């Protein structure tokens, strides 16, 4: 009993003897269930034991160091099985891990010279279908650019103008539409190109690893792990719940990761040219430290 507030102390904190397993006030027959006693009372400081005391009601197997207590039954202090509390603490640490990367991503995006665009976030900005199209054009540019006489740094070769026309004959060369964005071509979107790319691929790659881990755990629970359902169904149910919590957390991460990383906006200026400076997403945003 607490001297200050009078709150009851959890009964199981000092269950050395079987009589302490009785509820207070005791009901009919004193005990809720028939108590099982494994040893004599007053087994304190027994030589060879790792603990100072050995409760009467705990089996020798439960006293082993390899057994994690309260994996099925709720812990008297937290009200939760230890496994569930553990998975929540793990998820909290995951929030901080993704949060650190996401914070870096936000920091660089804020420092981008053309971000945020006019009007702020809108459905026009989160124009997801345009993202893959633009990536396709970007791929063509980098993949076919050298073959078309472009330099690796994105500048037009001496034989082409910025519209992709031959400087001598004026003929349109293959891929000319793509070449219109030439003077503002970003570096190849690889992690080593810019910090933003590095964080982008780290975030999405880490998320992918979490998915792989979740698939392995779920597959285990659906196959070999499901044998526990016959021997210890309550423990198995707790495992499924914990795996479900993890799986839905991975879903939550993607919900927050998807819009800012995949979405893209394509705007045209008055002359009908693609205004690459207004793009959002990792392919064009750049830190203020980046002079490209």
């Amino acid at each position, binding site marked *: 009993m607490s001297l200050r507030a009078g709150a009851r102390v959890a009964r199981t904190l000092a269950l050395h003897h079987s009589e302490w397993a009785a509820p207070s006030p005791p009901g009919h027959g004193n005990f809720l269930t028939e108590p099982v006693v494994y040893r004599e009372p007053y087994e304190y400081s027994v030589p060879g034991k790792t603990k100072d005391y050995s409760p009467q009601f705990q089996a020798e197997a439960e006293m082993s160091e390899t057994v994690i207590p309260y994996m099925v039954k709720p812990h008297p202090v*937290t*009200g*939760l099985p230890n496994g569930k*509390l553990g998975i*929540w*603490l793990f998820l*909290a640490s995951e*929030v*901080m891990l993704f*949060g*650190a990367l*996401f*914070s*870096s991503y*936000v*920091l660089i995006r*804020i*420092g981008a010279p053309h971000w945020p665009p006019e009007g702020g976030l809108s459905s026009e900005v989160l124009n997801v279908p345009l993202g893959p199209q633009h990536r396709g054009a970007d791929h063509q540019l980098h993949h076919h650019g050298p073959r078309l006489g472009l330099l690796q740094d994105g500048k037009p070769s001496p034989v082409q103008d910025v519209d992709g026309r031959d400087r001598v004959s004026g003929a349109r060369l293959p891929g000319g539409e793509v070449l219109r964005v030439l003077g503002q071509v970003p570096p190849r979107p690889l992690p080593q190109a810019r910090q933003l790319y590095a964080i982008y691929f780290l975030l999405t790659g880490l998320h992918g690893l979490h998915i792989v881990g979740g698939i392995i755990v779920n597959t285990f629970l659906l196959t070999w792990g499901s044998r526990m359902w016959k021997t210890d169904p309550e423990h198995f149910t707790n495992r499924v719940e914990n795996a*479900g*919590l993890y799986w*839905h*957390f991975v*879903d*939550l991460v993607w*919900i*927050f990761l998807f819009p800012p990383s995949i979405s893209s906006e394509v705007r045209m200026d008055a002359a009908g040219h693609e205004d690459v400076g207004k793009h959002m997403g990792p392919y064009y945003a750049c830190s203020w430290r980046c002079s490209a």
Partner: protein
Amino acid sequence: MKAGLVAAVFMHLISEKKVIYAVLILTALFFALLLALPNLTTFEHHSGMPGT
């Protein structure tokens, strides 16, 4: 909205023990701090504070 539904329904946060709420509130506070600190340095950088 979707994230809230996933957390509330699928992750059972609509009816959970207080200790989990406490853990999550603490996490949210640290997460907000994590987001705020670098951005505060950004604003300081752009405002031309000494040493930037």
